[in-house]
């Protein structure tokens, strides 16, 4: 598999590490145990197109959101994580 890092260009799979589904959002501090349980443990486990967190640790160390089909491994989009680089993020 090759992933096109938005910063580095197309790179070999072994430069990247996988974390998993990018959809779940870390709950707010007061969201409660059920919400955090859901965030940490439950997965849609999509059979098809899925947004995922990948880390280009063997390259530029950017976290990426990779849109990939879990049935075919086809990658349709790669975006940097919100905090990759020095991009301004509203406080």
């Amino acid at each position, binding site marked *: 598999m090759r992933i096109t890092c938005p910063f580095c260009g197309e790179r070999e799979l072994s430069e990247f590490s996988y974390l998993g589904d990018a959809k779940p959002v870390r709950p707010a501090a007061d969201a409660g145990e059920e919400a955090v349980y859901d965030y940490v443990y439950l997965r849609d486990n999509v059979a098809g197109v899925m947004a995922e967190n990948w880390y280009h640790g063997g390259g530029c160390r950017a976290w990426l959101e990779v849109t990939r089909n879990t049935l075919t491994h086809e990658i349709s989009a790669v975006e940097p994580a919100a*905090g990759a680089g020095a991009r301004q993020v509203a406080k």
Partner: protein
Amino acid sequence: MSSSQSHRLTSGGLIDRSAPLNFRFDGKTFSGFQGDTLASALVANGVKLVGRSFKYHRPRGILTAGSEEPNALVELRTGARREANTKATTAELYEGLEAASQNRWPSLRHDVMSVNQLFAPIFVAGFYYKTFMWPAKFWEMIYEPAIRRAAGLGRAAQLPDPDHYDKAWAHCDVVIAGSGPAGLAAALAAGRSGARVILCEEDFVPGGRLLSDGGTIDGLPAADWLARTLAELASMPDVRMMTRTTLFGVYDGGTYGAIERVNDHLPVPPEHQVRQRLWRIVAKRCVVAAGAIERPIVFAGNDTPDVMMASAMRTYVARYAATPAKRPALFTNNEDGWRTVETALAAGLQIAAVIDARGDVSPAHRSLASKNGFTVLHGSVSGVDGGKDGVRKISVSLAGGARAEVEADGLAVSGGWNPAVGLTSYHRGRPKWRDDIAAFVPDGAPPGMVAAGAANGAFGLGACLREGFEAGAVAARDAGRNGNTGAAPTASDEALSLTPLWHVAGKGKAFVDQQHDVTASDIELAQREGFESVEHLKRYTTLGMATDQGKTSNVAGLAIMAAVSGKSIPETGTTIYRPPYVPVAIGAFAGHHRDEAFHATRLTPSHHWAAEQGAIFVDTGLWKRAQWYPRAGEKDWLESVTREVKAVRSGVGFCDVSTLGKIDVHGPDAGAFLDRVYINTFSNLTVGKARYGLMLREDGLVYDDGTTSRLAEDHYFLTTTTAKAGLVMQHLEFCRQVLFPELDVQLTSVSDQWAQFSIAGPKTRDLLKEIVDPAEDLSNEGFPFMGAREVALRGGIKARLFRISFSGEMAFEISVPARYGEAMARNLMIAGKPFGVTPYGTEALGVMRVEKGHVAGPELSGTTTAADLGLGKMMSSKKDFIGRVMAGREALVAPDRQVAVGIKPVDKARRLRSGAHIIPKGQTPGPDNDQGYVTSVCFSPTLDQWIGLALVERGRERIGEIVHAHDPLRGEDYDVELCNPVFYDPDGGRQRG
């Protein structure tokens, strides 16, 4: 003395008669020529019997001339280089080649195990599932060992592989599998378009079928066209021809696996060269021009040596000038088979007869027959009379029902052609059936891949060139190359006119999968027993699971299954195709990564100095760390380690701790960031101070620990454990980039920038005063416990000094830029000499941390909570942090959790061992009273006894209780006392003093 090449034609072929080669097969010396394969050389020497089959040990010869060969497998080379199951048909001949037949004992001609044929009535498909069940113990003792000895094929080498392998990457616009007419045409079109092209050819000569079948292209004899084309391709700098290279698999993202047999054609690889190289080819497009495989017709005795595929026979005659038979017959169901007759006649051979299963034969063939004095029989071969020494007589069922016999010394068989659909099907594409050629053709190929020519079911030479050229041009264009392709090569198309015929009923065993001895009746049996699905068929009969992966057998097997189950062939379907296309040496996949080079080795900055001191090194992840420093006269590691610990506790010692992960945390929000990733607070840490921190995973369990110092308002220096350094960096980047992108914080690994030493012992300050610039205040007031700041060293070097202690002694850690690491170690020895400074290794480090009750790897097991480790109070209740919520789940705060506690043997002389379990005293060990286990132990020189840490149910409430350490693995049982885990200086006076 070489025996004569009795079956070699006096002229012709692509062999180099000026380069004779000697080789040995089963101990007998033969000769051949450069340009031969082992198979062609055996043919040239009249050798018919080459191997034995898997199950029945039937005598077998050579069936094909390519990588689809099921029968002619040999052990090639000897000793550590012995290669089992090597196809004689693809092994290039070299001077001194040694080959031996396999799966036979004591000899190929007289194989005791051929007795299995007598049991053939019982040894049908899957017979072993129905027997060998009683008595149960006999399976491992008797049946299985016997089966295992009988099964298998060749013998692998039993010594380490002495050859080297490597791996490489290649990038191109278009990769082409196969250099036959379609592949060459594709390369021409793509190359002329300006594309970067890689052409992989598994043979050692490019050309594919042109080498055997000839023909006319662009008005030129095939050989001339081939030479012209190769020259044109060679003139293009971005077209790369890779012979001896098989494209074996397609992986995601346009990555193709290929194996290059760099030096298999030599007795041993030249110095500094590899035997084989694994290529990862990254290509925008792929053209599969891998050709087609001629398929057998299944009939009784079809496995007799010298029953050969028709195309193989003409390859041996035309390419190698070697004659498998002097007077062969042909059995065909199509027009293509007749080409073998033409080739044989042109070489001066006689034809015994042609048995054509079709209703009609062209007038041209009829006149050829009458001119050359052979008969054409309309019918099918129903049996072969022959044996180890080849074919003698062929029985024919004539179309009208009569029988005939043909005397011949060989039989060429052509059942039609199967496109090589492997590569196009490896992404679970299912090939589709084409009635006109009665074959499966590619469908659903992976993205970017297209098949052309015979691999796509276009068998005519003209069609191959046309399709190949078109595919090459389109592939180049898709890859963004638009140069002028010029004209496509042209040739006329030969007719195939095939009437499908799969199986001829007859007496005797008719083999479908020759290597695995799967017969037509085995398939019928499988159907009868309900193994109708093709995958069940394959698994039940082992059809297609041999080293050739069913290249010559699968489709015939499906066809027979279709016939007996009353379905069509496409309804019956194919099994899933799996890479690699040809078997690939495991060593090639490993490449350079074996022995000491299996994984990278990381060396600490003081490594060479430690080595000079005679340090014993231990592998810690990728690191080599000094474990202890033996001195003359010390009888074992324990004595050395004990000395080192005592030296620290009484004087001063130092240890390279550069392996700790070190991370610069910069930015205005660095403090806020650390507050979120640690359970305790760092934003309120004073500049110039260090603090111990504990990180959880989001699931609430402990992840890592370390000290973090605040070097400036917006700069923290964080340390991790050695084991987790990389992972913590990744985790922190995740927090920074994904979870908390609003924080202005930057992270950099500085693990390799700093050589870091722990200096510990009551005389630490004395030593430091020697080496630190006198202007620096190292007093307890000037540099208190948990102080951290930059200092100057004598000689002008700047260092970072941290007053932290893992040993429980008065201690500092000092960092210098890494290229000073070795000098630092030497200077510490000089500075500490008056105080008896002692370098210590990881063992002593471990002893002192256990004495001090610090948790480390064995306790940070990924299943412990902060509270389990006695660190629950560090969890801030005033802020959110990673893992806060999940840490509060009921089972993680349950009162009966196993928590860290100290242990001491009741018998003070007793040695402790990690991994022993804790059982309440007086109880019989069992699952219900298994209350924990010993995590870490050491011999404590300070206490003069073994001590340890354990995770024990309610352990901290039970301090003082005597429990049982149960260690059945090592046959040890003894009483231990649960105690405070801080064995040494529990109130911490020494490290603060």
